[in-house]
C-alpha cells in the first residue's frame, strides 16, 4: 500500500500561509503548510480546533472568508480533462468564476460537518444531488435522476425511488450525511474533502459513515482528505496522517508510523489523551494548557509552553522538519542529534505495545488481512 512507485500526485500544497484581518489584529492561521495528496489515497489532517485544518481545506476550495488573505504559497492541482489531456493549475489566484465553473463540486468536492446546514431545506434530496450534474455537465434530467438513484444506493440508502422525493427534514442525521456524500460524489470528483463529517453524529452512525467512505474509495479510486480532531477516528480510513498544531504541520507519516512510532510530543499527547478500552489507569493523560493565541507572533516552537520535554532552544528557534524515514517527518528539536535522548511516555509505549500484540492475535484469525497490509513492516 505504501509503495512510492507509480504514485500520481493529485494535489500539492507548498508553503501555504494564510492570515485573517480581525478587529483585534491579524491572526496568522496558517504558517507554512506543505501537503501532498496522491491518487486513490487518503490523507488525514488531525489537530485541535483552531489549528488551521479547516482553513487549509477552505483554501483548497477557494471559499475562505472575506477577511482571509493568502500571503504566500501555492496549491497545485492536477486533473484530466474529458479529452484526456492532463491539466496542472495553481488554485491560488484562479478567478472565483473559473473556480466555480471548473473545480468546486466538479473536481474537488467537500463534505461539511453538519449535514443539516449543508443541505437546502426547500429542495428535495433528489434535486440537490442532480443540481451539480445539471450545472456542470448539462446532464439531461432523466439521466441525472437515474444517476442520483444509483448514488443513493451506493451510500446505502434503501427504498431509493421513494426517498429521492423526501426533503432533508424527513431524514435522520446519519441519512442526511449520506445524502451529502452522495451529492458530493455526483460529478465524479478527483478529490473529496471531508471536514469532520462525523462529529455531529452518533458513534454507531460514525462507524457506518467511515465504512462507507472506505468502501466508496475502494470502488471509485477517489482521493480523500479527511479532517478531524480525533486521532482515534481515522485509523480506519487514513493512509497518511498529518498532525497540525497552531497553523503548522508538526508531524506527518503513514498511519502506522503515526500510531505506532510517534515522535512529536504533541502527537504523544493526542494519542495518550484518547481513552482506550483496555487501559485501566485512573487518570487520562492530558496536554496541559490550551493552544496559543495566533494573534501574537509565535517565536520558537509554538508547542513549547505545553510541552514537558521542551528544550531551551524551543523558545528561540522554530524547529525544522526532521526526517525519520522516507515518509515520516516531525518538527521537534528533540530529534536533533545534539538534543538529550527523550523517549515517549511509558504509558503510551505500553499501550502501543499492547495494540500491536493484539494485532498478532488477530493475524492468526485473518490471514487475508495480513496479505494486504503487512508487507512492509515485520511484526
Amino acid at each position, binding site marked *: 500500500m505504501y509503495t512510492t512507485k507509480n504514485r500520481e500526485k493529485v494535489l500539492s500544497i507548498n508553503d501555504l500561509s494564510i492570515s485573517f484581518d480581525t478587529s483585534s489584529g491579524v491572526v496568522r492561521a496558517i504558517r507554512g503548510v506543505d501537503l501532498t495528496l496522491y491518487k486513490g489515497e487518503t490523507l488525514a489532517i488531525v489537530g485541535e480546533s483552531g489549528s488551521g485544518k479547516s482553513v487549509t481545506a477552505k483554501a483548497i476550495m477557494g471559499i475562505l472568508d472575506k477577511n482571509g488573505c493568502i500571503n504566500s504559497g501555492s496549491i497545485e492541482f492536477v486533473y484530466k480533462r474529458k479529452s484526456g489531456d492532463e491539466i496542472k493549475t495553481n488554485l491560488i489566484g484562479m478567478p472565483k468564476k473559473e473556480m466555480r465553473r471548473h473545480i468546486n463540486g466538479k473536481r474537488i468536492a467537500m463534505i461539511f460537518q453538519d449535514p443539516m446546514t449543508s443541505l437546502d431545506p426547500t429542495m428535495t434530496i433528489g434535486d440537490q444531488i442532480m443540481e451539480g450534474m445539471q450545472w456542470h455537465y448539462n446532464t439531461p434530467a432523466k439521466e441525472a435522476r437515474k444517476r442520483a438513484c444509483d448514488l443513493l444506493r451506493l451510500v446505502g440508502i434503501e427504498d431509493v425511488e421513494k426517498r429521492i422525493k423526501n426533503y432533508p427534514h424527513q431524514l435522520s442525521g446519519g441519512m442526511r450525511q449520506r445524502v451529502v456524500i452522495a451529492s458530493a460524489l455526483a460529478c465524479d470528483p478527483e478529490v473529496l474533502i471531508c471536514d469532520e463529517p462525523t462529529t455531529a453524529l*452518533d*458513534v454507531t452512525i460514525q*462507524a457506518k459513515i467511515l465504512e462507507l467512505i472506505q468502501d466508496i474509495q475502494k470502488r471509485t479510486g477517489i482521493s480523500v482528505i479527511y479532517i478531524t480532531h480525533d486521532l482515534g477516528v481515522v*485509523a480506519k480510513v487514513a493512509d497518511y496522517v498529518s498532525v497540525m498544531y497552531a497553523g503548522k504541520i508538526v508531524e506527518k507519516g503513514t498511519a*502506522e508510523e503515526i500510531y505506532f512510532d510517534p515522535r512529536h510530543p504533541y502527537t504523544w499527547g493526542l494519542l495518550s489523551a484518547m481513552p*482506550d478500552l483496555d487501559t485501566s489507569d485512573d487518570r487520562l493523560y492530558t496536554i496541559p494548557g490550551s493552544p496559543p493565541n495566533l494573534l501574537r507572533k509565535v517565536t520558537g516552537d509554538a508547542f513549547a509552553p505545553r510541552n514537558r520535554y521542551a528544550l531551551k532552544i524551543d523558545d528561540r528557534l522554530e524547529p525544522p522538519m526532521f526526517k525519520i524515514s522516507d515518509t515520516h517527518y516531525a518538527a521537534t528539536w528533540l530529534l536533533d542529534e545534539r538534543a538529550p535522548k527523550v523517549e515517549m511516555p511509558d504509558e503510551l509505549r505500553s499501550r502501543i505495545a499492547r495494540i500491536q500484540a493484539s494485532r498478532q492475535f*488477530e493475524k492468526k484469525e485473518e490471514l487475508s488481512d495480513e496479505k494486504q497490509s503487512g508487507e512492509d513492516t515485520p511484526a
Partner: protein
Amino acid sequence: MKNNQEKTPLLEVSHLKQYFHAGHGYTVRAVDGVSFRIFPGETYGLVGESGSGKSTIGRSIIRLYDPTEGKIIFRGTDISGRLDRNTNNMLRTEIQMIFQDPMASLNPRKRVEDIIAQGLDIHHLSKSKADRNRRVAEMLERVGLAPEHAERYPHQFSGGQRQRVGIARALIMQPKLIIADECISALDVSIQAQVVNLMKDLQEETGCAYLFIAHDLSMIKYISDRIGVLHLGHLVETGTTAEIFQNPIHPYTRSLLSAIPHPNPRTERTRVAEAYDYRAAGMDYNAGKEQLIDGTHTVLATDEELQRWISAPSLSL
C-alpha cells in the same frame, strides 16, 4: 464504591415515563418505563444514540419536564409529583446540571462571577458580599481557573474554560447529585481529558454523585462505576462498567461497543462494526422483561431472546 447494595440509594428512578404530545393525536414516547438507582458518591453513566431519551431522563429528574408516570425518589423524598416549596428548594440546590454547549448555557451578558454566584443569590446563601466573593474565588481555583477570571465575560474564555465555569456554577451549591448532560461532547479530545480528570478529582473531594450522560462509550468507561444503555426510551442493559464491557449481552450494546474506533490502523481497516437494526431484528422492547445475568448486570429481553444472545459468540474488541 463497592458494596453499593447495602447503602440506601441517593436517587431511585422507577418506571419513569416521559411522553410528549406532538399534536395530531401523536405521542412521542421519549422515555418508556426506565428504572435505575444511583448511590451516593458514584457515577452512573447513561449511553445511547441521539433520540434514545438519555437527555430527557436527566431533564425529567431535575424537573425541567414533568414526568408522565413513574416515581423519582431523591434522598427519601418523592420529586416526581407536585413540589411544595421546601421540596422545590431542596431539588434546586442539591441537584445541579452541567449542559452540553458551554457557550449556549452561559449568559453572555453576565460576568463569570455573577454566573457562578447566581445560585447563591437566588437562595440567599451567601452571608455578605465578601463571603460571596470568597466562595466564587475558591470555586474558580478549584476548577483550575484564576480568581482574576471572575471579572471576565464568557466570550473571553476558550471552550474548555467555559465548561469549567459551568462546572463551578454547579458545584458552588454543594450538590449531592450532578447531572452532566453530554458535558464533554463539544470539546476537543485533549480538553475532554482535562475536564474528565477535573470531574473525577472533584468527586473525590466533595463526594457528589454524577449522572453522566454521553454517547461516547470510551469516555464513559473512564468515569462511570455503573452504566445504563438506553435505546428508544428503554433501558436495554445495565450493570457495572466491567460487566457491560466484558460481557455485553444485548445486541444494541454490542453494536455500540463495536462502533468505538480503535487506534490501530492495521486491524481497523478491515474491521466492520456490528450492525443492529431494531426494526429488522423484529424485536419488541415492551415484550421483554428485566433479566438478571449476574451481580447487578440486567438485560431487557424475553426468555427466548436471552437464550439466543447468551449463546452468541463473544465480541472481539
